């Protein structure tokens, strides 16, 4: 067996190794950090790609439709002979869904979070939390099916005059979808409040409810607000539930009993219908997508900022 290092001390072996400039070890140590940096950089490229895509096609859209019509009108008739592109009709659809979803998700999500963090035994928590996570893992197409085939018929039996496609049913189901998100982020930030603060309040004679509402919740407020804002951003970007159960009638009217169309549902409708490349409808989905991207980005940045700025350090 050929042993080039035979007879050398360990120190000499290490030095000999260091001198070999192009040993595999050395090459790997030079090249890998760069390759790893490139893979981390993919995320930046993705963001740039999104901005470029949306910006470029948005520009083409505004060459055909004036900005004033897009942002100043409330009529959205992209497929009629007399095309109208007033985006507020779609924004109103999204707004209805978001409002209804938050009415459902905030109380239920916060109640779940308070119960899990303040009342539940350790055992109950280890069982209940994973089940809540299962709810978070259900694909949105399944929620969409559930909204149309189960929730809508029940609501129609309760509310006369409710159309098959309406804002109420998908709004409620989007809210249900968001419950785990609000519950889990709020619960994390409430659990992070140190036990000694709770014990202090309990020692002064406060009940568990008073501790939860007046001590723990204010201390965890930044996390709770962040969870609600992130939940809203999820509701705004949610696509399949509103496409399946919300209908495709954009109108600028706050009436959850009627069919609506959200920004996301419009994008799906046009993409599915194979709008020819280069038509105004084709570019309009990028305009709507850009607005959607800006809405969600602002909310996500706000949630991040709130968490960082108002975090209570113990």
């Amino acid at each position, binding site marked *: 067996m050929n042993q080039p290092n035979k007879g050398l001390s360990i120190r000499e072996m*290490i030095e000999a190794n260091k001198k070999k400039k192009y040993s595999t070890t*050395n090459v*790997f*140590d030079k090249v*890998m*950090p760069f*390759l*790893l940096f*490139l*893979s*981390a950089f*993919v*995320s930046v490229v*993705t963001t740039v*790609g*999104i901005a470029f*895509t949306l910006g470029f096609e948005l520009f083409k859209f505004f060459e055909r439709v004036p900005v004033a019509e897009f942002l100043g009108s409330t009529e959205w008739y992209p497929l009629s002979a007399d095309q109208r592109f007033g985006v507020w009709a779609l924004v109103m659809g999204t707004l209805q869904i978001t409002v209804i979803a938050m009415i459902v998700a905030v109380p*239920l999500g916060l*109640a*779940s979070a308070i119960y899990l963090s303040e*009342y539940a035994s350790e055992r109950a928590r280890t069982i*209940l939390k994973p*089940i*809540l996570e*299962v*709810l978070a*893992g*259900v*694909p*949105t*197409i*399944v929620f969409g*099916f*559930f909204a149309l*085939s*189960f929730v809508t018929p029940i609501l129609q039996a309760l509310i006369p005059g409710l159309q098959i496609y309406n804002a109420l049913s998908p709004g409620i189901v989007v809210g*249900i979808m968001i419950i785990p998100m609000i519950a889990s982020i709020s619960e994390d930030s409430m659990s992070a409040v140190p036990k000694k603060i709770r014990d202090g309040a309990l020692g002064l004679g406060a*009940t*568990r*409810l*008073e501790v939860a509402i*007046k001590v723990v919740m204010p201390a965890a407020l930044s996390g709770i607000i962040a969870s609600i804002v*992130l939940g809203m951003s999820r509701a705004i*970007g949610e696509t*399949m539930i509103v*496409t*399946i159960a919300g209908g495709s009638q954009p109108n600028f009217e706050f009436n959850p009993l009627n069919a609506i169309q959200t920004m996301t549902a419009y*994008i*799906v409708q046009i*993409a*599915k219908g*194979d709008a020819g*490349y280069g038509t105004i409808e084709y570019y309009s*989905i*990028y305009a709507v*997508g850009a607005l*959607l991207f800006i809405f*969600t*980005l602002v909310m996500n940045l706000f949630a*991040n900022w709130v968490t960082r700025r108002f975090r209570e350090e113990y």
Partner: protein
Amino acid sequence: MALPNSEFKNTKNLMDRASVSQRIKRRLQLNEIFKYVFLAGLVFALLVLSTLIYDVVSKGGGWVNLDFIRNFPSRRPEQAGLYPALIGSLWLMMLIVPMVFIVGVGAAIYLEEYAPKNRITSFIEVNISNLAGVPSIVFGLLGLTIFVRIMELGNSIMAGALTLGLMSLPIVIVASQEALRSVKMELRHASLALGASKWQTTFNVVLPSAIPGIITGIILAVSRAIGETAPLIMVGAATFISTTPSNVFSDFTALPIQIYNWTSRPQAEFQNLAAAGIIVLMTMLIIMNSAAIYIRNKYTNRH
């Protein structure tokens, strides 16, 4: 809560036992009531989950059989199946897993082990957390422009996989970062002290210790991606297809697309088919998630 002044004035004696004990009683009652109010919130969420499962199983349970798995979609509900959709979803999975593994874990290793603490690094980190919040349909628009049109991949499996892969990256990176962070510093120091280089330490010591956490993260991210519908609609996954894909550049369909197609038809039988498709999809997701939980439990606390 500050005691209202009026209560002091009305009480001649500050230690009015009757009023104090009444007050305490009310507070305790309120405490007890709200305990169940909060529990009701949680129970409601769980009830919805079980209702959803019951609804799907009662509508689609009778429709899931071997023919349903083996057949192609058909206009006649009793003959319809989801074979091409199932194969399409498996193709997507096979492509997404290596993609997110290489790029996602690479990014996580860079950020945890190599990245200097500077502006570029924190910019990348902020960027990743923002990407995680971008709606999936926006990723679909990205895929439509970049992969389908500019790179001319057409409505192919590759275009779908790249789109879903980019969408899953943030989840994989964050999960892998957590897994790497949980590897003890002592292990790294021991390896370096034995003369291993930085990369040898990372590849042979840190990565193997972190791999269970990383795999768990990847499985969870991919199971999210497999259930996604909107990005696939955007890149033009077919709703009706008569062949199974032969390579990565073939047209394809996937389980969520097939379910969506059946859901949007008015006839009741197609609703049953949609429910049956949901059962197949959810079964796949449950198997994947169980595997993730199994791996997580088996390998935790090994070091």
